[in-house]
């Protein structure tokens, strides 16, 4: 096994000194893997992602990327936020090209190359023809695609995604899950894939997408178990119907059921 892409070593995060959101989390994230993090609400999933993004420092413990400590945000780690965080004053194209135009991701690209990549990314997420629309003119599913295109256009080494599909209706979700896997490169050899850390509260989504699912417990957020998802790729509707898929969902559900009930009843 090669060195991990990202290593979290005994990382804790507390707010205001008393509330412990994440407690001594140790986790290795492999190069090119699709890692999903699931857990009941209050398990600190989003906090983990924000720390990986460099938006929040850890209270204790170490986080390293390619062996170097993570000390702040960086363009090699792209983030897709839960509510997309699109720039409302910029069109679809303006949002997608933002990181390339104003950030380091566009360094070394000629304007023509940049335009080519932006147009290609917009086409890839199925937004061709909507380039000049503003976010408020788009449906939820389309906004989500813009956020995905903005993330992909910068071609970060690592994609950090915080419940990106949570706000969508069930049909759109299924379609975008398939597309996400296609864009991630499930048809290509594993060495050509990017590393993805995908936060979700939906167990079936985690099982369908990921190579491994990290299950967190809540209050405080601790790593409960890592479940290997050995469903064959490429995955699609046949995967969703398979017995293995259902069994994996069920076993993860059993891991967090008790806590989920407790969180709901309280």
């Amino acid at each position, binding site marked *: 096994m090669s060195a991990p892409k990202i290593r979290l070593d005994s990382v804790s995060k507390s707010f205001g000194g008393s509330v412990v959101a994440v407690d001594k989390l140790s986790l290795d994230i492999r190069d090119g893997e699709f890692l999903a993090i699931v857990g009941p609400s209050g398990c600190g999933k989003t906090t983990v992602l924000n720390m990986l993004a460099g*938006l929040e420092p850890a209270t204790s413990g170490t986080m390293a990327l390619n062996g170097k400590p993570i000390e702040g945000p960086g363009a090699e780690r792209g983030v897709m936020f839960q509510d997309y965080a699109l720039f409302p004053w910029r069109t679809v194209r303006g949002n997608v090209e933002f990181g390339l135009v104003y950030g380091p991701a566009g360094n070394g690209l000629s304007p023509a190359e940049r335009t080519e990549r932006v147009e290609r990314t917009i086409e890839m997420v199925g937004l061709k023809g909507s380039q000049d629309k503003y976010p408020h003119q788009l449906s939820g599913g389309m906004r989500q695609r813009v956020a995905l295109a903005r993330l992909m256009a910068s071609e970060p080494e690592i994609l950090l995604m915080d419940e990106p599909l949570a706000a969508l209706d069930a049909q759109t979700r299924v379609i975008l899950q398939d597309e996400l896997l296609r864009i991630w490169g499930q048809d290509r050899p594993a060495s050509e894939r990017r590393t993805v850390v995908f936060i979700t509260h939906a167990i079936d989504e985690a099982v369908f997408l990921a190579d491994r699912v990290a299950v967190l417990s809540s209050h405080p957020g601790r790593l409960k178990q890592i479940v290997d998802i050995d469903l064959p790729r490429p995955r699609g509707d046949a995967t969703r119907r398979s017995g293995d898929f259902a069994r994996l969902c069920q076993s993860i559900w059993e891991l967090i059921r008790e806590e989920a009930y407790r969180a709901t009843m309280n």
Partner: protein
Amino acid sequence: MSAVSLTGAKAAGSTRFGGALVYLRTMALFVLAWYVGSLFVPSKLLLPSPLAVAAALRDTALNGELFGNALISLARLLASLLAAAAIAVPLGLLMGRSRLWNDLLELPVEMLRPIAGIAWIPLALYLFGIGHRLPLFIMFYTAFFPLLVGTAAGAAAVDKRLIAAARTMGLSGPTIMRRVIVPAALPAILVSARLAVAASWTAVVAAELVGAPNGLGYAIEYYRSMLSTPTVMAFIVTIGVLGFLTDKGLRQLSKVLTPWAQTGAAR
């Protein structure tokens, strides 16, 4: 987002033409009430009829006095507004985004802000004498604080997630200021500009009344001393119309500059 329109939502189904009709109807009612009222006021010096005012408007328009003075006041207003914006907007952005700047400036700003610009007229008379500089200073002062406070509030209220998104793309602090904070705060800045212009119109008259050899305020004072109330009223009406038009212009400007932040445009 209703931040841009101070008057709130437009009535449903109103067209441009329908809107103009509503304006006209309201104005006609107002002028009629004025006319009837003037019949019962014994002295024309106290309340001239709208007809007399219309005649005065025609006369001053024909001899160039109306446009000459209006142009001077308008130019002063624009010059002082631009000067105020040039300082207040950058300062407001700093105050809105930096604790240090906010702590440094908050107390003096909050102490100076409640003082009406016209309170400085006596002092400004000593400093500047009568001429352009006094009304320019008073209007600058009047426009400065709405712009400063509005910009600071707008910059402080920028959605944190947008800034986080820009940080994760590796943007530097100054680039985030220019490419995220400024555009995100622009609707708030434009609203504060409308407030600043409205306040400036009230200040221009007061300042020119005492401190200028020309302009709409000067004309009002001049014709008052001539006991020509219809002409005084003609200049007052002109100020109202100009105030309306400048606000309309600014609203149009915010539609052009911030099409994404107009009423009814949800995020």
